[in-house]
């Protein structure tokens, strides 16, 4: 009885081990056999843009140098993605939602120089965007501006500012709106004569954003998660969204379901790009990584950005029909209102910052 099992189990076990070893060897060989590979670690809403752009760049590079380049993509909340690169995700280039996340990579992991943002034109942002409101068709709750978001009974969807870049832009745009309302002119922020007024306005802004966050039923970790919460699961009355993400949702899921509302004031969001020097050097991809990012500024790159609802920094290369989709809106900059990303991050989003003080999860 026992003897009957002996050869089969023994033999099978050996087969299994042998099979496993073979698979590992095959996987290793496969990984080293390919052409140039570039890893672009990006934030959530750029998925569609980079699918198109990577194809365009690959054929441009092939024509120019004869080399085959494949670009691999990783997407997620910008803060989370930056953390992954810091922890060793070997990105050759990062294309994230805001400058602070890239600065964090420079600071914490020393993978690129701290002055990275001056290496490419326009603060290293080849396209810009802004924050808009996405509401359900017909705007049943009558949401027109930031002040409508704190009304009782309005459910606001926004991701978590701790992990999502888009959410940080949302938060700061709301803050800037209150400052503008209270002060009448944001230039007063830089005039010591008005420091008392500024203090009062800051207190108002703090209360306003706290009230806004009270109306948020769920904080997803990334912009795309929030989009699906609002669009697919049907939760919430208004979704504070990247302009491109809002356009995409309307296009993909039906103009009969959603409407884009432009608030009276919003923020100029500059999602920057840069080469992660140490990784690219290690992979021997420095040259192609640089060319990849420069190609974003080329007429073709700019055209594709506009096609995917990003505002191109050189609009003359874009299709006028694409440009016509972007409405005029008063945009404030992070440098002007918050003294740059480093300041904004430290004051508002770091542990123990304003966000931690004013946000108490519903429950």
């Amino acid at each position, binding site marked *: *009885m*026992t*003897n009957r*099992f*002996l050869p089969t*189990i*023994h033999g099978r076990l050996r087969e*299994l*081990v042998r*099979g*496993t070893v073979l*698979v*590992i060897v095959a*996987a290793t060989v496969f990984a080293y056999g390919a052409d140039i590979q570039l*890893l672009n670690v990006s934030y*959530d809403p750029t*998925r*569609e843009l980079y699918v198109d752009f990577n194809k365009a760049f690959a054929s441009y590079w092939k024509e120019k140098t004869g080399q085959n380049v494949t670009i*691999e*993509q*990783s*997407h*997620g909340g910008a803060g989370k993605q930056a953390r*992954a690169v*810091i*922890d*060793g*995700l*070997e990105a050759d280039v990062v294309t994230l939602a805001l400058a602070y996340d890239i600065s964090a990579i420079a600071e*914490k*992991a020393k993978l690129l120089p701290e002055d990275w943002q001056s290496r490419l034109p326009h603060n290293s942002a080849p396209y810009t965007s802004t924050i808009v409101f996405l509401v359900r068709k017909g705007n049943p709750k009558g949401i027109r501006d930031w002040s409508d978001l704190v009304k009782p009974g309005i459910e606001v969807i926004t991701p978590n500012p701790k992990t999502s870049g888009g959410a940080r832009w949302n938060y700061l745009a709301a803050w800037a709106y209150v400052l503008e309302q209270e002060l009448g002119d944001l230039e007063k922020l830089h005039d010591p004569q008005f420091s008392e007024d500024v203090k009062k306005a800051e207190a108002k802004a703090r209360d306003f954003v706290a009230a806004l966050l009270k109306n948020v039923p769920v904080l997803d970790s990334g912009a*795309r*998660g929030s989009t*699906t919460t609002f669009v697919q699961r049907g939760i919430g009355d208004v979704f504070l969204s990247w302009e491109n993400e809002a356009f995409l949702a309307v296009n*993909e*899921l039906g103009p009969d379901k959603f409407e884009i509302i432009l608030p009276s004031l919003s923020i100029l969001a500059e999602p920057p790009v840069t080469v992660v020097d140490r990784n690219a050097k*290690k992979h021997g991809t420095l040259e192609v990584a640089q060319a990849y990012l420069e190609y974003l500024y080329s007429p073709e790159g700019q055209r594709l950005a506009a096609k995917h609802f990003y505002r191109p920094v050189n609009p003359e290369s874009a299709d006028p029909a694409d440009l016509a989709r972007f409405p005029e809106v008063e945009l404030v900059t992070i440098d002007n209102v918050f003294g740059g990303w480093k300041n904004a991050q430290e004051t508002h989003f770091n542990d123990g910052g304003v966000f931690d003080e004013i946000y108490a999860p519903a429950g």
Partner: protein
Amino acid sequence: MAGQITSSMGVAAPRIKAATSEPWWVRLALTGLAILFLASFLMVPLLAVFTEALRKGIQAYFESFREPAAFSAIKLTLLVAGISVPLNLIFGLAASWALAKFQFRGRSVLITLIDLPFAVSPVISGLVYVLLFGLQGWLGPWLSDRDIQIIFAVPGIVLATIFVTFPFVARELIPLMQEQGTEDEQAALTLGASGWQTFWRVTLPNVKWALLYGVILCNARAMGEFGAVSVVSGHIRGKTNTLPLHVEILYNEYNFVAAFAVASLLTLLALVTLVLKAIVEKRAHAASAA
């Protein structure tokens, strides 16, 4: 006194009878409730997966698997399960053999440690490896200098999966081996068998059904694990996405047909697992009865 006792006994007897045979409508209601519960919480979602997947026809369904990213997710999932299941089989056998057949110091600590992955949230299981092998972690700089990539690559995914599926085989084997005791092994040894022979010819055949059962469960979890793998994956499309991660990505890209098509693959895996599990249980039962 005596009269009281008999009277209380006289009342108790019919009560016991009533407790075992409820009226027909109670039984019907209870059974109906259970079926309703099963239908709404298990069958409906199951059906939903397949209807969503087939929404745009059978051709769109199969197209979803021909996409290179989906194909590589399938390959990676098979590779990860192919490495972690055999390793956990060997570990599970060794651990349960040591724990059930021998008494030694620290034995109870080891039993507790085997259960650890069940008690720990999968996210923590993933983060452990980030802390160990991440660039800012203990071994990260050393590994990076030698160009060895553990997390955000296949080895990290394998490690996280092994950790999460650690207890499945051992947990199945330990109670059975303990119950079987050491008499068979002692008999074999007295008859002159070596330790190795005893293991192959006595211990292993005795537990083969439980072992298979553990392997099936281990495999199902290895292929389906999301949390721990998500933390260490890096989410590189076509490279470090397993099937469950690929489902999430497709869903987030508004590609619902493909998302549910890939999800249906995982669902099928679950169904196959259940069938295999049922067969193994039946065989094991027959074997123990014989």
